[in-house]
């Protein structure tokens, strides 16, 4: 119980405060920081803030749920139609992400930027590799 409280409340609260602090610090320091460091600070603050905030919100909702609502939520989580919906959504999302990446790839080609083109190429390859690795994993399991 104590561990749950640390993981669900104190750690996310600390993360949220740290994220806000990092964002504010990056804003105050402004031009004194290199643009890459400033971007990293804002990116990190956004990611940590988002994760911590959502964790805090989930913990809050979790406390307010009744036993009946909790059971219903657990059922919805393992409901076979919901699982099928998630799988279909993930499958089509994979294609849309791929189309989007190809769009960005051609855009970088048109704009003539070298490094972003290479970066997007790597992301496209990784996107497909992860898909194939998971296909192979599930082929063995099913």
């Amino acid at each position, binding site marked *: 119980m104590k561990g749950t409280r640390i993981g669900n409340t104190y750690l996310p609260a600390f993360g949220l405060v740290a994220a806000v602090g990092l964002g504010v610090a990056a804003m105050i320091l402004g031009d004194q920081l290199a643009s890459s460091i400033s971007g990293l600070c804002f990116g990190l603050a956004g990611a940590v803030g988002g994760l911590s905030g959502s964790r805090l919100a989930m913990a809050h909702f979790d406390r307010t749920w009744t036993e009946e609502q909790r059971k*219903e939520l657990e*059922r*919805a989580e*393992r*409901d*076979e*139609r*919901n699982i*099928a919906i998630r799988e279909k959504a993930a499958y089509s999302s994979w294609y849309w992400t791929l189309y989007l990446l190809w769009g960005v790839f051609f855009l970088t080609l048109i704009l003539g930027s070298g490094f972003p083109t290479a970066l997007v190429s790597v992301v496209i390859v990784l996107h497909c590799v992860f898909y194939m690795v998971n296909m192979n994993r599930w082929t063995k399991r099913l």
Partner: protein
Amino acid sequence: MTNRIAELRKGRRISQAELADAVDVTRQTIISLESGRYNASLLLAHRIARYFGLTIEEVFLFEEDTP
């Protein structure tokens, strides 16, 4: 594939929520099954048929078998 879930459920005066509880799915799944938008897995079909005390073939009807 069609099914007789709605007919059997109404015949036994059972609500969608009660059936959903009994076979451990959401009410939305029962609604989708009854409207024919979703086809149950073999496991769920088995649970539903067992709940009504019937065989899978008596609850779920394949198009080619329907008269």
